[in-house]
């Protein structure tokens, strides 16, 4: 049996190294043998071999849906994939509270909002509110955190002004809607507003949402990005870590 080649990591179907991929797409043509051939040529044109058009069916008026299987030899060099990881030892909420008490000496002040027109508060609430997420209590429950949850559809200037007023240490932004990359535009808005006001280093800036990666967040000038499955204690631990770093610098 072939062994896994990490320097050219390819998908696995049922034989190591087979490069097996499933695809589906719609073409703006009615189903026909010609359409099927076109689908096959299309996928072969993308560089796949052993292309099987497993399914073609009519969709609505003038469209066809295809399910296609193929193989690719073109892998990725896994050894060279570098991704900033949000590491840090996993702490539970009592440990974090204790550390904040002893090392920071006062509650950390955080403020969160869905900016722009985003009204999806479930994710943000999961992090901030008492109840928390998946059995992990929210920041509001911590003695070590003072939290303000501004909720949905908050304009950037309103958020920042409130952050100043509340003397926040960290701003937490939630971005769920990603249609036409609106989340990226909205994320940029926060950073450029802070820059404009000369506040870019004042707050720990954290963002979260289903299409956020830590990498993306860093690229856009945030301190951290959290995504699906993020737990309040992960976020708390990160903020604590960053607070300690900042404190270290100041000292």
């Amino acid at each position, binding site marked *: 049996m072939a062994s896994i080649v990490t320097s050219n990591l390819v998908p696995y179907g049922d034989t190591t190294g087979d490069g097996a991929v499933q695809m589906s797409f*719609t073409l703006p043509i009615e189903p026909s043998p010609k359409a099927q051939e076109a689908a096959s040529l299309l996928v072969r044109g993308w560089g796949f071999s052993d292309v099987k058009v497993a399914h073609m069916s009519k969709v*609505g*008026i003038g469209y066809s849906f295809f399910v296609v299987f193929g193989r690719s030899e073109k892998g990725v060099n896994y050894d060279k994939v570098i991704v900033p990881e949000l590491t840090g030892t996993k702490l539970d909420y009592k440990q974090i509270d204790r550390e904040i008490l002893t090392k920071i000496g006062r509650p950390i002040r955080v403020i969160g909002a869905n900016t722009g027109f985003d*009204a999806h508060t*479930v994710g943000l609430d999961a992090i901030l509110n008492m109840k928390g997420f998946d059995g992990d209590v929210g920041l509001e429950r911590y003695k070590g955190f003072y939290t303000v949850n501004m909720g949905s*559809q908050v304009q950037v200037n309103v958020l920042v002004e409130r952050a100043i007023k509340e003397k926040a240490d960290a701003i937490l932004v939630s971005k769920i*809607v990603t*249609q036409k990359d*609106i989340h990226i535009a909205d994320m940029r808005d926060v950073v450029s507003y802070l820059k404009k006001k000369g506040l870019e280093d004042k707050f720990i800036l954290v963002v979260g949402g289903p299409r956020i990666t830590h990498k993306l967040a860093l690229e856009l000038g945030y301190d951290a990005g959290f995504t699906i499955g993020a737990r309040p204690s992960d976020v708390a631990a990160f903020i604590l870590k960053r607070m300690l770093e900042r404190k270290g610098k100041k000292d």
Partner: protein
Amino acid sequence: MSYAAKLPLSTAKIARCRSIAKKIGDDVADLVRSHSTVGIERAVLRLLGIDSAADRGGLLYPQANLVVDQLAEHGRLQEGVLYWIANAMLHTGNDLSALKQSLDDGLDIGTLPERKRTKTEKLAKQLATRAQKNLLERVAHHKKSRKGLHDPAGQARPLLYQIVATGNIYEDLIQAKSAVKDGVEIVAVIRSTAQSLLDYVPHGATTEGFGGTYATQENFRLMREALNEVGQEEKKYFRLTNYSSGLCMAEIAALGALEGLDCLLNDAMYGILFRDINPIRTLVDQHFSRLICAQSGIWIMTGEDNYMKTTDAVKSGDSVLASQFINERTAINANVPLKQMALGHAMEMNPEYDKVILMELARAQMTRQIFPESPLKYMCNTKYKTGDIFTSHTIDTVFNMIGAFTGQGTLLLGMPTEAVHTPWLQDRSLSARNATYIVRGAEGMVNELGFRSDGFISKFAQDVLDDAVKLLEKIHRIGFLKAIEKGVFADVKRPRTGGKGASGVFPIEPGRYVNPLYKMMGSRI
């Protein structure tokens, strides 16, 4: 062990819920009686056919807004627009269409001197009659255009409902026509993100939207036309839906009615809880919008399904049920027949829970029994969907089955890509095929299954009903607005003075405010 077609729900408890809801409805009626809103006034203008728009720095701003803005500016809202339109007609000697022209040309009716009230009131009444006639004629016109077509609402299985949401009305037309070709029976055009917070209705055909397409009169017309076109081919009547909850609740109802929409998502609670709209504003708007729906045969669709997205749906069944009773009552007060009340609920429990299918079945069946005449709007699971589109499709299958087994009125079909993007054409096709298979395959099931009277399912449903009684009692005790302030619904707290659009509400007095449409459209308030 005994089994029966129905769950053993106490009719006394159900009746008790309805009687408390009636009292809560009275609280809402008080608000309605003593307020109007800029939205209602604009809706009246829309019914009068004032539907043009003026270019204001690239933005098309509706004439209806301009007129209401003028009146507001001059402190003239308290009489209502009908009064001032009549006044302007009397003053200028213009008939309505000439007046419309003058308005387009820049006439400010806020500044015209006030004529004699009795005469103005009389003309206002005639205008109201004309508005209603206009409405009813348009409704009749749309009704005629579907003559001879098969109406799937007559079938012994749920209607299949899908959304289109490309942001571009022309892409939407492709997607909507495809959807109905693929088996869908109700098409909803989702609005662009945050349109509900706009205090005007955008104008014309639009091609730019985020996560949805603007609800505009022209977009409504285009979509109605497209569905009629396929309808004629298929000899089947396809229903069209849009969304009216929001700051333009009444106005969109008016536009929807004029353009032949069949259903409207219509729920003040949705605006309050999920769009942070001022509670009084939207409750008052809601009444007028429902009057219009009642008149035009439009099914109102309520938004209780959404409560299950911000709470644990296993636990929020009581608040959903309580809200449905309240919605039923406020709709009755607006003359909406039971058959036009598509009360909302959803399958939103965490699919990983043990016995989740039993609990969902229990809740769905309970709702079906309590509101036997409602074309219940049953919404698929969305919150627990992930990017695993296959598992998502599995969940939708379960949803379709529960919907079919319990005879829901309308299934808001799930999409495999629910957690990823607004649907692609293929997502919609897969979703429609899934549902068609299930509702056809399960046809007749409603009359086949029995439930164990002392079983888990019966018990679960009974508990939800018991909790709903208690919750309604509590809401009544503390007051409806207070209950909203306390986060009784969807775990969301909204103060009565807060929220968007509060400035658009104004108090009215019987002697001063003129709007005969309330009575003409059968308001019970």
